[in-house]
């Protein structure tokens, strides 16, 4: 495992191009494009203001930089550095900007969700979509980029519009049986649209591409409901995390629950392995307290940690949420399937330092990672069943079915990993700190061995 030196970045804007060749980072109002393998700067673009959002087009030829405060979007071309494009939303404001899947249209959402403006880079044409709903996840493109589903709100009723992305033709428009639609997501094969209600009601609806209601699922009533929804990459399972600290798995044939994963405070499952991170402060002898060591500084305060396998039963630290506050810190908020759909990683918000890994073949708990501090981010390797996670300290943690490791990031100046993202090949990992970033290269040869 090799680590690069630290690079500057701001707003945690750092993305690898979809073809995996380039790395784009934003530093204040500058956009820096590097080669992923050599880390040499290929291009440098200067925007009009501090960049608040950045996104690669699907063909890796263009980059969109949005400055929400100014209502501006600037697009840069990698092949033609002279080419430029500037979209000004004017006084109506801008809250979100994104590429359409073809990489030739930009969808801008105006302030107050008044409308979505679709700008075409081919024809300079502009079209509007009215009444978009302001919610958790109001738009979603299908994986093949053909269709866009958009949540709308008209006359106190929820609707879903399905557009053909090719020419923004409205394919279907139907009312959903939701009180207050909170989100929608296409299945990876693009044939089923999952729609879920706001947390006040546990309701998940499944619509076919042609707008037929396939199934409705509700686990319980009168209690806070769905918190997160994720499709498995195989489109076989729909995992629903909810406020009752459970994950329910629906199958794609009957759309009924086939499994339920509880997150108990005491782990008694003999099949699960509980890894507990144990910190060990490096013993500092009197001889080591020399000036030399103090100047080196940071390593002195770094603690080494390693995983220990805990004998069952294991008691997990639980934080009781404040019942008087909205959006209580309880329930399963994060769900992620591994790329082969074999494993599901979950995080329960009132057990913030624990990541649960479930085996989707055996439908039981595979492993539990108990960290010393709250888990910030975790992501699966896009190629292998390998999970990377970080807890806002100087370490990187990796889990695979073979075991669990904690790796100290060998950088100076107290680089703390706030978030991470895998390179598409699964060979490297981008670690993001507050103002810096670091690339971590996996030793592929060793992996093969």
């Amino acid at each position, binding site marked *: 495992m090799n680590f690069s030196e630290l690079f500057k970045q701001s707003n945690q804007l750092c993305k690898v191009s979809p073809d995996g060749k380039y790395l784009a980072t934003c530093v204040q109002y500058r956009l820096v494009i590097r080669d992923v393998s050599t880390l040499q700067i290929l291009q440098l673009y200067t925007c009009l203001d501090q960049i608040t959002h950045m996104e690669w087009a699907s063909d890796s030829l263009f980059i969109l930089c949005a400055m929400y405060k100014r209502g501006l979007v600037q697009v840069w071309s990698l092949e033609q550095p002279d080419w430029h494009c500037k979209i000004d939303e004017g006084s109506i404001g801008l809250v979100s900007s994104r590429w359409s899947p073809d990489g030739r249209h930009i969808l801008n959402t105006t302030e107050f969700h008044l409308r979505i403006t679709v700008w075409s880079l081919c024809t300079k044409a502009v079209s509007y979509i009215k009444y978009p709903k302001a919610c958790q996840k109001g738009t979603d493109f299908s994986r093949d980029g053909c269709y866009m589903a958009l949540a709308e709100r008209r006359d106190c009723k929820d609707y879903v519009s399905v557009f053909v992305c090719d020419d923004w033709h409205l394919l279907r428009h139907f009312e959903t049986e939701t009180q207050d639609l909170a989100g929608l997501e296409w299945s990876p094969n693009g044939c089923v649209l999952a729609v879920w209600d706001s947390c006040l009601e546990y309701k998940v609806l499944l619509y*076919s591409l042609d707008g037929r209601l396939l199934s409705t699922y509700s686990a319980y009533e009168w209690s806070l409901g769905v918190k997160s929804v994720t499709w498995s990459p195989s489109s076989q399972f729909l995992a629903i995390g909810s406020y009752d600290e459970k994950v329910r798995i629906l199958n794609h044939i009957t759309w009924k629950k086939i499994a339920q994963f509880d997150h108990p405070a005491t782990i008694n499952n003999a099949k699960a392995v509980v890894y507990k991170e144990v910190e060990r402060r490096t013993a500092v002898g009197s001889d080591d307290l020399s000036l030399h060591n103090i100047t080196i500084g940071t390593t002195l305060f770094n603690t080494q940690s390693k995983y220990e396998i805990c004998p069952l039963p294991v008691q997990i630290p639980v934080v009781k949420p404040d019942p008087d506050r909205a959006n209580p810190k309880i329930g399963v908020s994060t769900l992620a399937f591994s790329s082969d759909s074999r494993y599901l990683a979950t995080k329960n918000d009132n057990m913030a330092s624990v990541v649960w890994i479930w085996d989707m073949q055996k439908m039981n708990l595979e492993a539990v990672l108990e960290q010393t501090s709250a888990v910030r981010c975790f992501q699966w390797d896009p190629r292998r069943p390998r999970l990377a996670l970080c807890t806002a300290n100087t370490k990187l943690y990796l889990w695979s079915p073979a075991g669990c490791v904690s790796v100290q990031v060998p950088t100076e100046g107290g680089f703390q990993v706030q978030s991470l993202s895998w390179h598409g090949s699964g060979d490297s990992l981008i670690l993001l700190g507050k103002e810096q970033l670091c690339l971590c290269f996996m030793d592929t040869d060793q992996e093969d061995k």
Partner: protein
Amino acid sequence: MGEWWTAVPTETSMGSYEISSISHVTMSPSRQNNLMSMYSSAGLSKSSYSVISAFCTEDNIPQCISYISQELASLGLSSTCIKASSPGGAGLDTVPALNAMYELLQIHRRNMCTLEELEKEQLKKSNTLEQMQMSNSRLKDQLELSIREKSGLHETERQLHLKIKTLQSCLKTEKDEVQKLQSIIASRASQYSHDAKRKEREAAKLKERLSQLLVERRDKKLAIDVLNSLGRSDGKRSHWKTTKVTASHEDEMYKSLLSDYEERQRALMLENTELKKVLQQMKKEMIHILSPCQPSTRGATAEDSQADSDGEEKAGDSSREMLDQSCEHAREQLTNSIRQQWRKLRSHVEKLDNQASQVQNEMESNNEVIPKEIHEDEMEKMRCEVQQCKEFIHTQQLLLQQQLNTSFDDETAALLNDCYTLEEKERLKEEWKLFEEQKRNFERERKNFTEAAIRLGREKKAFEEDCASWLKNQFLNMTPFTDRRSCSSSDGQSALSIRSEPEMRMSSTKAQLAKSLTYATVSTPKPTQSASVPSTAELYRTLRLMPDSSSSRHSHRGRWQESSTIEGGDTRVKSKTRVRCGNIFSLGEDENSLT
């Protein structure tokens, strides 16, 4: 004396009582005398004389005589009328007077006896009364207690009832509260949803207005500034929006949906065929398992089952053929046949289970049957083997140690030592196991021995008993009482023999007799009877008294004695005197016994 006057008439009125009272009166004359003397010695001597002197004087003898005769007549003793020896004279005709006197005395005595009986009765009654009163009071106490308890329980029940009532009322209020709160919640919810809708509408209106304003303002800034337009990512030119295009979109959509469904169907088909394969294989294996086993297990019905399985195989084949057609009929058949086979398999497995258990039982029984000699031999053999092994190991160890001492350095030696200790441990463990086994065997044997010993003891006891009975018979034949015993009532003898059986066995006959005698003198009514057997045997014979009646009477007396606490010595005297006294009433008693 006045007491006596009143007592007499009651006695006479009880005519039927007389016989029993006679039978009961067993007082000896001596005691009568004693009593009389006691009476006379006490107060009577003075007062009665004075009364008598007042009643009869020299002057009024004839009047007295007439009066007494009248009185006697009135008492029903008119037959023996007292007459003056000479009319008008002071002399008295002695014979009738004495007779009258005697009868009076008899009456008096009888009265005394009944009085005594009555007193006894009375005492008993009073005793029982006392007891009754005591038990009554006790019961009363209990009653009171239970009443108190009952009232307490009533009180608690009442309190509980009260509590229930209050709780019920609480529940009711709570329910009301809940209902109220629910209605409040419902109203709030409706209010909220209403407000939300209103606000949303307002917001929508505002948004509409805002967008209108923005459009009207013709915002100059709203613009796109592109250096030169880009080509489409797919390289094609954009199409006109026509109905044809929309139709093509629909087509595309349905195509993708169709392809998805097709794919899904293909996957399902694949899964289905896989499952079918598994099912077929299972079925085949089941047939395979069932068919060869059936003849051996079922025996007589083997042929039938063979035929069955053949038929099934055919059915299976046919179902296999029909599987490809994948019609409902085939599926039904398949599931049915599978179900059948499964049932068979289950029954077969159950049978096997039963057989296995039977075989196990047989094995166990066989194990029990293994003769002891073989067992011992085996044990001996094993012991020998163990001994040999031990020796072998020992020699090996010695050799190794020698080798060690000569060639290896300390470290390896230590290591090897460890190995040795481990080995030794193993060996010891094995030995220990062996010893345990031996110990178990010994214990089993010991148990057998103890059982045998117990059996022996029992036999010995039986033998002893036989011996004792034989001895007893011998002794009874030898004793001088044999003839008497044979003629005396059999009941007494049997009773005696039963009672004194244990002592008979323990000691010699003479000693036994003496013991029984001494035992009799101490107390308890029945032994006294037995004690009187040798001493008053002749008397019994001459009197031909029934031992049962006497004993019952005696026991009655005995109880009386206990309550009145008269010494044992006194009772013995009494019993003797009673028996002598019985002589007088023997006739009457005989009559009683005869009737």
